């Protein structure tokens, strides 16, 4: 009786039965490409892992040039299971970016951005930028040699952009050079600004997915089956998440994330500095681009091209909005395949290049 009273009391205030009714009605389309639906949820799950492990790391991490490296060293050597938390945080970050790319390309090739899902795509594109910023800012936080110089090179690249480049560089670095001030503000972005922004965009993104439901490719519109979201789909999601925990645990135990040497701003840059793998294709492009292209500075041109591509990414659903336009459909498919091939090839080249 008392439990019923409590349930009724809560229901009156939170409309739980209405929500449960909605959840009960929610269905997921089942067809040949349903597998791709899981990658959005997997990205979200890995984001939650990041939040949880990030909060634990915050208990010991100290964001200053004098203490950052030592505090991470303390976490992985002295704190009970600190090594596990730190390694999972690093591995999960990388897996999250990988699943995010898979999710984005699957959405692109399945044309899930067709009306009325344009805003869902745009919020996803914002989340891609936010996640990349998460990666870039988090990479510096252990204050090790590689991270220090990668940040130096990364921010220098940002500084090359005409007119706004220099102010952006100074804003990112907190001065003319990468110093403790850079570390402090990267920490601020990483644990406050970006999580807050990400939460808003994830909220919008997930809410829109609920509003519009899962997109069904045109080919299967007339022949697909349905699966209940609760519990059938969510339990399948759960299997993926449980296995993801297993993968993360295995990676952390077998390949603990290295700490390296403490950053020394006065030391010369070590040979063969490379950014994280998800920046490699851009890095390799900038390395290969000639110094001068049509009288323009090659590096500037390369950076502007990447900015333009990022802008195009945002407006994809506003250019390709007619499911009947087969010619445009083909052009977009070619562009997508070329972009994917380019990213894969240049990443491999960047990885093996000295």
């Amino acid at each position, binding site marked *: 009786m008392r439990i019923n009273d409590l349930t009724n009391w809560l229901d009156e205030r939170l409309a739980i039965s209405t929500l449960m009714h909605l959840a009960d009605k929610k269905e997921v389309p089942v067809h040949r490409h349903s597998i791709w639906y899981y990658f959005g949820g997997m990205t979200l799950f890995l984001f939650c892992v990041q939040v949880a492990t990030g909060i634990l790391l915050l208990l010991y991490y100290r964001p200053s040039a004098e203490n950052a490296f030592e505090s991470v*060293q303390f976490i*992985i*050597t002295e704190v009970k299971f600190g*090594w*596990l938390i730190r390694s999972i945080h690093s591995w999960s970050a990388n897996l999250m970016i990988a699943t995010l790319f898979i999710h984005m390309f699957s959405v692109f090739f399945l044309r899930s951005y067709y009306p009325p899902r344009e805003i869902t795509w745009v919020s996803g594109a914002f989340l891609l930028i936010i996640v990349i910023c998460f990666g870039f800012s988090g990479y510096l936080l252990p204050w090790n040699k590689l991270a220090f110089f990668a940040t130096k090179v990364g921010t220098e690249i940002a500084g090359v952009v005409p007119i706004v480049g220099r102010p952006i560089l100074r804003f990112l670095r907190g001065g003319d050079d990468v110093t403790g001030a850079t570390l402090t503000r990267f920490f601020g972005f990483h644990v406050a600004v970006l999580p807050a922004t990400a939460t808003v965009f994830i909220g919008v993104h997930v809410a829109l997915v609920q509003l519009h439901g899962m997109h069904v490719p045109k080919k299967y519109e007339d022949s697909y089956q349905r699966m209940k979201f609760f*519990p*059938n789909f969510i*339990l*399948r999601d*759960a*299997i993926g998440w*449980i*296995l993801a*925990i*297993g993968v993360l*645990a*295995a990676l952390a*135990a*077998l*390949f*603990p994330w*290295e*700490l390296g*040497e403490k950053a020394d701003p006065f030391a010369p840059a070590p040979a063969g500095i490379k950014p994280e793998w998800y920046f490699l294709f851009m890095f390799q492009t900038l390395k290969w681009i000639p110094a001068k292209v049509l009288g323009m500075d090659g590096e500037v041109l390369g950076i502007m091209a990447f900015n333009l591509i990022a802008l195009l990414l945002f407006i994809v659903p506003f250019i390709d909005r007619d499911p009947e336009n087969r010619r445009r459909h083909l052009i977009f498919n070619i562009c997508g395949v070329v972009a994917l091939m380019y990213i894969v090839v240049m990443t491999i080249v960047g990885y093996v290049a000295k």
Partner: protein
Amino acid sequence: MKIENCKFQIDPVVSGVRLLKDGSRNLQFRVCNFQFAMAFLIASFLLLVLANAAFAQKKSSCIECHIKLDDTRLSAPAKLFDNDIHKSRGLSCNDCHGGDPNADKKEDAKNPSKGYLGKPKTLDIPAYCGKCHSDANLMKRFNPSLRVDQEREYYTSVHGRLLKEKSETRVATCISCHSVHGIRAPSDPLSSVYPSNVATTCAKCHASADYMKPFGIPSDQFDKYKTSVHAKALYDKQDLSAPTCNDCHGNHGATPPGIASVANVCGQCHSRQAELFQTSPHKKAFDDKQLAECITCHSNHAIIKPNDQMIGTQQGTLCVNCHSNGDKGFIAAGMMRSRIDELIASIDKSTAILKDAEQKGMEVSKPKFELKGATDALTHARVLIHSSSTAEVDKVVAPGLDAAAKGYQAGLAALGERRFRREGLVVSLVFILFLALLVYLKIRQIESRSASASNKG
């Protein structure tokens, strides 16, 4: 006051000279303050006159004539002088050689009545340079920090004594080392007495067997020096503080250090070793046997990098050259070597296990850093062997062994931790896979239930 209808307007209010455009499109100069303009013109004129005077070359008929001569012996000084430090300080030919650089005729320029001295004889060169370089008051005008005792010191050197006492003109004088007419500051990398050029400069004479023959001294010093640890530091590592000829022999007072002073020479840099040697039993024994201290074991010009094989009781070690089985020195040498070997083995063992742990992904930078305590102890022990005291060596080897043992324990702990992680992973994976299996079975159960419900329906 304003003058209307005139191209020049004088306005005492505005200062400066400006070009203006009026409504009728005529260009006008507005000169503000007439006095100011006049003062400006006079100042400009004076400036031109002064600049002309300053930039006018000081006449030197010596260079004007000599530079044109076909005989390279006579033209070279004029050409070389362009890079000479004396020229950069405002000195010219006549400041050393006398004469009149303003005279256009050779006879007038080289007139002895005008103080012309000509080329100095070899015997006179030290005094010739010393005219200025031994004069403290004069040198203050050019380089107050430069010493003025070079000439006096030179006459104490073997070179100087031979020149003065035996009128031996084949010996080195100022110009043999510093060159002549193209003299550069010793801090100039192109100078013949720049640290990395000193040995080559000395070798010009000292590496020539024919040249050294009359003096009865060997000529292999330079070849030997090139194989030494000092030369490697100087040439390979570009360490300009590494010793070259003059650092041990002196420069202006160049003399081979005698038996009694060798230790002092080496002790200028290796002060701790020299200090320990002075307190060791070797000191008295070396003095009694008239042995030169450092070089008896380390040699002089061909000083190789010291290694642990130099000490001990095995054949090939230096100790057995004097000590024989059973004597106190023999026993001490054996013990010191065995303690050092023990420390090296312990460090190697710890380094290997830490490296292994690191390669397996374990974070061991802290124990690796702490292991430096053991390597520092090893360095210290290698220095302490100059005391010839096993007890002194042991004082640093013992803590070194402790530090190395701690490093080894840290390595063992890291590998143990790695094992624990792997075992923990296996247990976790079993649990995780079991959980995934349970969820999978739940899905099947739900779906088979709903399928049978829909079949019934």
